[in-house]
């Protein structure tokens, strides 16, 4: 169980958070202009990486804020947390 450094509250136990899947997938601005395939790409396709993964997390049982997190799924090391809208601090 991780300890997650919520950008708003500080370090808290993982049980307070919920994971919202892959980060930096922006909702298309004009969905009506997309083909079925393009829309399906947005809707269904998610990476499942063994290694460094960018994820969305929500401090569900705390401040309820969403934020981004960089986690190495092979060892669960959290490499960075940053607020929504911010650029990832690492590549």
């Amino acid at each position, binding site marked *: 169980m991780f300890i997650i450094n919520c950008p708003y509250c500080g370090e808290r136990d993982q049980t307070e958070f919920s994971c919202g899947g892959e980060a930096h997938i*922006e909702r298309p601005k004009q969905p009506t202009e997309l083909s079925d395939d393009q829309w399906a790409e947005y809707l269904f396709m998610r990476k499942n990486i063994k290694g460094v993964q960018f994820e969305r997390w929500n401090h569900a049982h705390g401040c309820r804020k969403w934020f981004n997190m960089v986690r190495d799924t092979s060892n669960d090391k959290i490499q960075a947390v940053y607020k929504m809208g911010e650029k990832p601090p690492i590549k």
Partner: protein
Amino acid sequence: MSKNLRINKNNFIDQTTRISFKFNGQKLFGYKGDTLASALLANNIHLVGRSFKYHRPRGIMTCGSEEPNAIVQIGNDPSLTDPNVRATEIELYEGLDASSQNCWPSVNFDIGGINNFLSPLLPAGFYYKTFMWPASFWEKYEYFIRHSAGLGKAPTKSDPDIYDHQYSHCDVLVVGGGISGIISAKLSAEKGLDTILIDDKSFLGGSTIYQENECYKINSINSNKWLANEIESLKNYPNLIIKNRTSLAAFHGYNYLLARESLTDHLSVNERKGKVRQRLWKIRAKKVIIASGSIERPLIFSNNDRPGIILSSSIKKYIDYYGVKTGENISLFTNNDSAYETAISLYKSGVKVNVIVDIRKNSESLIVKKALELGLKVLWESTVVDTQGYKRIKSFEVMKLSDDGNNVVGDRSKYNCDCLGISGGWTPMVHLFTQSGGKLKFRNDDNAFIPDENKTPSNQISVGSCNGEFKLNEIVVNTIENLKSFLSLSNSCYDEIKIICPDEKSKRNIWLLPSDKPIGKTKPFLDFQNDSTAKDVKLALREGFKSIEHVKRYTTTGMGTDQGKLSNMHALGIIADTTGTNMGELGTTTFRPPYTPLTFGAIVGRNVGEFFDHTRKTAIHNWHVKNKAEFENVGQWKRPWYFPKNGENMHQAVQRESKAARDSSGILDASTLGKIDIQGSDASEFLNRIYTNAWSKLEIGKCRYGLMLNEDGMVYDDGVTTRLGENHYIMTTTTGGAANVLSKLEDYLQTEWPELDVYLTTVTDQYSTISICGPNSKKILAKIVPGLDLSDNNFPHMSFKNTKISNVNCRIMRISFTGEHSYEINIQSNYAEDVWIKCMEAGKEFNLTPYGTETMHLLRAEKGFIITGQDTDGTLTPSDLQMDWIIGKKKFDFIGKRSLYRSDTIREDRKQLVGLLTEDPKEIFEEGAQLVENINKKPIEMLGHVTSSYFSPNLNKSIALAVVKSGKKLKGKKLIVPMENKNINVTITDTVFYDKENKRLNA
């Protein structure tokens, strides 16, 4: 049998306190400090149980948590009995009642023992191979397999004991109270760090504490005396907590650990009353020091499983710690030096070892020389090839090893004995290290997997023999040095330490010892509990299994309650030898938590019975209870299901309630619906984006029904939202969806549309909702709020009014989920019960009838209103529900819009919501029943299923909603609902059964 093998020697047992206990009904005595195993051995009892598969007699083999054989059933109370308890771990208490498992009628005469003679017919994979065919026989096979499977008996009644969970945070957690753990705890505490030291035994000191041998000295005194002083000195540290009888179960990431503390298991039953039995510690440690030690390996030779064959180090512990001789004619069989320490301990206690069989050519070690000086006889370069004795070993046979160790030469010579100690070297206990994510490396010179220091997760360290250090000087010096850097110490209280110990530890490793017989004629056991042998492993390899994970599952090696702690290494070794692989490349099977079995009680703690889950009750709950409501669980909510009167059953009550609601008036507690307060200058725009229909033009004071989709176009939730002000709405959601809808809306606001000025607040608990429906609802409301103009002009359907009931502000919405003229009163929850009672009084003359969820469902089904989650299942679009009217086609975008014209969502043969009427109007079918057209053509094509089904008292016939392939086009079509004993004929209809013109809304 009634011999006393206790020696009167200065040991760790309180021989002044006698304790009586029972084993298999026989009354026996032991002493305070004994384990069940040591007390049984003192009574010369070795035979404790029968093995799992062949029912072979098995005895005590170890003295710790790695014990594979001596597992017993404790007690016989149907709620307190405890199966699969290791006799080596259970501390003796007055009145302990233990019995053997897996044997019938008794451990001495076990019918199942016939399996032993059938063993050539029961190779690895026997069950997989035999019970494959015919498939239809599986149910018959299963009955017998289930009956012969399993070791102990589970309790049949619920557990009355109390279990606790507790969180703990510390700077340093030390796991293991052996010499390296004690040194670690002292260094940590000395530095002023908050330290917890846990050990699974009742005493500290590990194996060093009873190592009475002048070959081992620390600072000029015997190592055991030195360690005793160190343990004593730990009392001086207020920042050090010591927890005995506490077993580490799991080591998760980020130094989160679970440990089970046994608090009463060592007390007599009378002393346990009112106390917590076990406590599960949830520890978050800044740093973890693993000092979990190592366990001795057995040796693998034919019939190495007989009662009386014990690990050599365990013989030593029984004599040195418990003062118990494990036999009167003991021999030892070894591949390393540690058996000689046992021989010396036995010698000092007056037991002369008959012979030591050593597979090595010789040893120059100091400890071996000492043993030889005592006149002990050693058979060098020899191996045990077989043993005799059914319920206790009687003799063993020895042969000379060939030079390369692959064969035996010469003749067998036989030695009598009643106990054979075996020592195959040591396995570091790396379970916790690997559980935490650490990776192992293989050390070839002593064939051990040890922690790889380059692949160790941060903030943890392994010290002592679990780190592969076995010589006393290495253990102590390396522990101190490693901890100085781990804990950033500049110096330590141990800097001047001086250690004397034997310096050589030679070992010759042969995983499977050779025999003069072919392997097929031998029984070299690997996994003692699951009865898998070296030949099973070889068979699995011959049959093509390559991965060790597969071999493990096929042969069940290492899959018992002991998880193969003793001899997984031998299985790996034999696989490596047979396949010509290096063990390091082969790797190990995965070590999974818990390290030793946890009780279910410890896992669930106090979260049992009414504390299993949260229960949410509405503010009107007490009234419902007083009025004999039957309750239904909706999520965590307790909702009135129906209100039976005069012994009515559910059907009768629901029929009465439904009729009353349409004939005159009904009242429902709708407080559980989710309520979200939405404010902000972009609130209207926000609603436009999340609902399928348009919101900008909704007038203040008006209500609108909204349908919410997922991005995939499937219906997610629905409810009525009311515009309270220019920038202020209140949204209702389904009861079960409330929390998820709020999260979803927050998600979009925070991540996709942060530019919107919108604030969401849940007010589900703050407001209670009382719904009054029926043709007389207006008259009832008029009595409660006499000042309010209830005319259709002033207060039409789908509008709301702010008003007061007895000076309390409330919001009244005129909305309807039943199709009747109806009102929902929303009021601050602490006034809700009063207002409810007022409504009941006002409604008395109109037969105002309280109804529950079942009647609510029936009434809405008559009107064809969906319940998301019942009529929908996440695979239906609005169009599938025949709700195209709610799609704002002109809107630029809303959640899920694009998905509504994906190639899949525009298919015409999707399942679509329809109404169903039965040919026989009295026939009611089960929800979930399948709909088919042709029952003669097999396989029968299933066209859909019933989602809601009721008997409508207002229409006096059965009605149902269903989803059916191409349902929209099938109106009037006759289909069949095949049930177990009959076929029900149905006709597809419109989804609205009652008041199609909606006249009653304004009645």
